[in-house]
C-alpha cells in the first residue's frame, strides 16, 4: 500500500469535513434516540397509569367473584369503599374463548405453515401465502360479523362461546401460519437431509425432526397469536356478547375481560373497575410476551 494515500485519507478525515460530518452524525443519532425513548416511554406510561389507577381494586375477590351489578357499585362508591366483586366471569370466559380458539387454530395453522415451507416456490403456496396476508388484514369487526352470520345465526342459534372462539381462531390463523413457516425456515436444511439420508419416511422427517427442531419458534408464534387475540373486543361483541355469571357451556354466551372493560366503560358507577381489569389484561399479555421471548432465547437450537 502506498503510504501517501494513507496519509492523504488521514488528513481528509481529520481536518476537512470532520466537524460537519461529526455534527450530522451526532444529530442523526440524537433524533433516533429521541424517537426510541418516546416509544419506550409510551409503554411505561401505559403500565404506570394502569397500575396507579387500578391497583386499589385488585384483591382476592377481584379474581374469585363475578362482576357486581351497578347498584352495588353505586352504593360502594357513595360510601367511599372499593367496588365489591371482581371479574371472574371475564377471566374464565377469556381462558375458555382463547383456549378453544387455540385448539381450532393451532393444528390448522401449523399444518398450513409446514405446507408453505415445504412447497415454498409452488404456485399454490404463493396463492395461499397471499390469501393469508389478506386474512390478516381483515378488520376484526368484519370477522365478527361474518362469524355472527355463520355460527351465531346458523349453528348455535344465539351468542355462544363457540362463535367467539371461531372468530378469534380466524384472527390467530394467519399469525400462526406465518410464524410456523418462518421458524421452519430457521431449521438448517442439513438436518432435514440427515434425516432423509437415514431412510426416514417423509411424515416422520416432519414430526420427529422439523417440528422438534423448530419447537421454540412454534411456541413463540402461538403465544404471540394468543396474546394478540386476548384483547380483541369487537368480534366478541358480535359473537359471544357477554354474561354476568361464569359459563362453561360452549353453546351459551360468555363474558371476556375486554368485554367487561367495555361494559364498565358504559356504566358510570363501574369506572374504577375499568382500570383494574385493564391492568390485569395488560399484565397477562405482557407475561405471555415475556414468556415467549424467554422460550425463544432458552430453547433456541443454534
Amino acid at each position, binding site marked *: 500500500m502506498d503510504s501517501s494515500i494513507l496519509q492523504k485519507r488521514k488528513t481528509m478525515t481529520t481536518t476537512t469535513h470532520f466537524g460537519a460530518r461529526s455534527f450530522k452524525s451526532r444529530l442523526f443519532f440524537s433524533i433516533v434516540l429521541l424517537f426510541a425513548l418516546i416509544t419506550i416511554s409510551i409503554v411505561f406510561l401505559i403500565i404506570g397509569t394502569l397500575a396507579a389507577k387500578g391497583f386499589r381494586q385488585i384483591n382476592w375477590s377481584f379474581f374469585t367473584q363475578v362482576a357486581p351489578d351497578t347498584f352495588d357499585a353505586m352504593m360502594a362508591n357513595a360510601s367511599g369503599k372499593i367496588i365489591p366483586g371482581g371479574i371472574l366471569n371475564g377471566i374464565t370466559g377469556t381462558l375458555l374463548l382463547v383456549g378453544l380458539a387455540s385448539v381450532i387454530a393451532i393444528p390448522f395453522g401449523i399444518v398450513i405453515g409446514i405446507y408453505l415451507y415445504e412447497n415454498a*416456490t409452488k404456485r399454490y403456496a404463493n396463492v395461499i401465502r397471499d390469501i393469508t396476508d389478506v386474512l390478516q388484514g381483515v378488520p376484526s369487526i368484519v370477522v365478527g360479523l361474518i362469524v355472527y352470520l355463520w355460527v351465531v345465526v346458523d349453528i348455535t342459534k344465539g351468542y355462544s362461546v363457540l362463535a367467539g372462539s371461531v372468530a378469534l381462531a380466524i384472527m390467530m390463523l394467519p399469525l400462526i401460519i406465518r410464524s410456523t413457516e418462518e421458524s421452519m425456515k430457521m431449521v*438448517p436444511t*442439513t*438436518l432435514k*437431509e*440427515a*434425516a*432423509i*439420508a*437415514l*431412510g*426416514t*419416511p417423509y411424515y*416422520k*422427517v416432519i414430526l*420427529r*425432526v422439523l417440528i*422438534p*427442531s423448530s*419447537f421454540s419458534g412454534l411456541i413463540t408464534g402461538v403465544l404471540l397469536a394468543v396474546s394478540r387475540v386476548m384483547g380483541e373486543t369487537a368480534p366478541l361483541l358480535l359473537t359471544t356478547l357477554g354474561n354476568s355469571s361464569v359459563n362453561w357451556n360452549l353453546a351459551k354466551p360468555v363474558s371476556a375481560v375486554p368485554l367487561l372493560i367495555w361494559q364498565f366503560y358504559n356504566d358510570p358507577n363501574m369506572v374504577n373497575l375499568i382500570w383494574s381489569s385493564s391492568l390485569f389484561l395488560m399484565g397477562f399479555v405482557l407475561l405471555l410476551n415475556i414468556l415467549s421471548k424467554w422460550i425463544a432465547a432458552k430453547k433456541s*437450537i443454534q
Partner: protein
Amino acid sequence: MAPATSILSIEDLSIAYDRDKYAVKNVTATVRKNAITAIMGPSGCGKTTLLRAINRMHELYPNISTEGKIKLYGDNIYEMPTIELRRKIGMVFQRPNPFPTMSIYENVIAGYKLNGIHLKRSERDEIVEITLRDVTLWDEVKNALHKKGTFLSGGQQQRLCVARALAFKPEIILLDEPTSALDPVSTAKIEDLLVELKQHYTIILVTHNMSQAARISDNSMFMYLGELIEYEDTKTMFTNPKDPRTEGYLTGKFG
C-alpha cells in the same frame, strides 16, 4: 477394479438440473467393495451430484432428471423404494449435523428411532456402544451419552454423524467432503477411521483435498464439467495421469 469384487456399478448416468443443463454426463464406473473410492474435481464438476445420485438424495432438488442406471449388487437403485435404499447406503455430510434435539445416545440410534424400529434396551445399548467404539468416540463420550450431541467439538460431532450412518450396518457409506469444516487433528482422526472402516464397509468419498485422496483412497475418480475424465487406482492416477486435464488439476494448474 475386477468385476468380481464390485458392489456398485454406475451405467451411463446423466443428471440434468434443467433441460440440457447437465451436472453429470454419461458416467460409467464400477465401485470396488471394501475399498475407499475418492471423487475429485474442481467446484461445480458434478462430484457431489454424482455422490447424491447413489442414494437418490439428488432427487430432493426440483426439476431434476436422471438417465441411466446405478446397480447395487445388480439391482437398479432407481427401481428400489428410496427408504430401503437409504438404509443400505448411508451418508455423512460436509458439516457435522447431529440432531440438536437428541442426545448422543439417541443420535446414534436415530436411524432406528426415525424409522419406527423398536429395539430392546439391551440391543440399543449394544448398538450404541459398538458403533461408538467403531468410530473411536466411545471413550470420549461414554460418561455423557445423554447429553446433547451439539455440545461435542466439530470433529467429535462428525464422528457421531459417521456413527449414526453406521448404526444401520449399511453396505456403502457416502461422504461429502466430511473434513472440510474440521481442523487438521480432527481430519486425521476421521481419515484413520475411514481406513479402519473399509474392512467392513465400502466407502465413497467426495473430496476437494487432493492429498486426502492420495493418503487414504484406493481408487480415484477425476471429474470435470460433469464428465468422468479418469478413473484409476489412486497411485497410478497420482503418479501417471493419462489425461492432460487430470494432470493439470493434480499439479494445481486449475481447480
